[in-house]
């Protein structure tokens, strides 16, 4: 049914893969914030970001993402060109591309465990970071449980997921036959995790995370490059 990207396929090893998640988050946030720059500056940002995408070896994922938005991009570009002008059409298209792909670098090269560590070091409460990471770890299991529910209900002759607008009542009943047990199982699972975590002292005030992220040469290089690009953009106004 679903193949969680970061679970079934670990991020590919690359120069960016070894960077601290906080560095990547900063670069992505800066890229997204840069969408308001004028066209010439945007082109520089887009070029720099594209180099990062290539360095991270995620160009295929990014292109797939752009393909999904292709209709929107083409329609907007054409309309802007016709009604306003070519420069404006290019500007908006580039901004939209950066908006769509701006965080791809982060999500495609970071595992949830790394995100949990980064969140904790950014002083996000440990319980929130743990809850998020747990939810991600259990995505695959919840998917299996969903399939098991579908099979179990089919064993009783309840046909799912044949949802149809022509038979809304039956469709709702079939959806309920899956969703209700799914919520119950999910709640039971959340409770088991709560007990297990509490039984190992999770909410202890003396808790110390064992994960320690450290900025490495890769991070210093990336941050220096980002500052350099920003300085050039400011200088060339």
């Amino acid at each position: 049914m679903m193949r969680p990207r970061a679970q079934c396929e670990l991020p590919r090893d690359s120069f960016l893969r070894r960077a601290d998640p906080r560095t990547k988050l900063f670069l992505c946030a800066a890229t997204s914030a840069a969408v308001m720059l004028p066209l010439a500056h945007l082109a520089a940002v887009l070029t720099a970001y594209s180099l990062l995408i290539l360095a991270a070896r995620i160009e295929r994922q990014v292109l797939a993402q752009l393909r999904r938005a292709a209709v929107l991009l083409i329609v907007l570009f054409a309309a802007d060109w016709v009604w306003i002008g070519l420069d404006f059409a290019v500007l908006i298209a580039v901004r939209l591309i950066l908006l769509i792909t701006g965080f791809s670098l982060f999500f495609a090269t970071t595992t949830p465990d790394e995100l949990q560590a980064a969140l904790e070091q950014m002083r996000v409460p440990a319980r929130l970071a743990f809850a998020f990471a747990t939810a991600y770890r259990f995505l695959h299991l919840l998917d299996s449980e969903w399939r098991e529910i579908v099979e179990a209900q089919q064993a009783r002759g309840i046909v799912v997921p044949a949802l149809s607008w022509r038979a809304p009542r039956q469709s709702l009943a079939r959806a309920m036959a899956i969703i209700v047990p799914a919520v119950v199982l999910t709640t039971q699972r959340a409770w088991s995790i709560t007990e297990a975590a509490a039984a190992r002292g999770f909410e202890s005030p003396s808790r110390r995370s064992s994960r320690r992220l450290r900025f490495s040469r890769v991070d210093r290089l990336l941050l220096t490059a980002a500052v350099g690009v920003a300085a050039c953009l400011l200088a060339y106004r």
Partner: protein
Amino acid sequence: MSTALPPTPEPPRRYFSLFELLLLAMLAALIVVANFALRFPIRLPGHSGVVWMALLVTAATIVPKRGAAITAGCISGVLAAFVGIGDRGALDTVLSYAAAGVGVDLSMMVLGRGARVASCVVAGALGNLLKLATKVMLEVWIGIPTGFVLLGRLYPAATHTLLGLAGGYLGFLVVGALRRAGFFAYVAEKR
């Protein structure tokens, strides 16, 4: 008879208990799973909101505290971004689903929580509509003329509202079924 032991600090009182937080996170994960698993035959704008709103409304009723839907919405948005849901990139996905959570929480603040059909239905509609509004605001933010952005948005606004209503109603039915099946009695025993 106890031996003298040094005092131990009490943990601070939390708004959400660990169980509530984990439950919201796991329901957020269920939202992502259901998004793939339950497919509707007609792909109208906002069709994913049926299941998304149903489960957000359910989460906000099971954990009847302000902020429950926002928490579940934010987590579901980040999870969705990780697995590649959304055709406008991760930022749009995260913000849209966080906004959906805001809509559900706001609506329930005004109309009340619990298994009330009006509350659930309006929450679903508002949540799904705010999802669309987030996309619109992002488009305005990057400089697309507002008039152009709003042009042709009447139809998606209508479908988002209707499908959000449907999602809220489905959430109401799910909550009702859970209540009748004894689920809330099970949850009520837990802190």
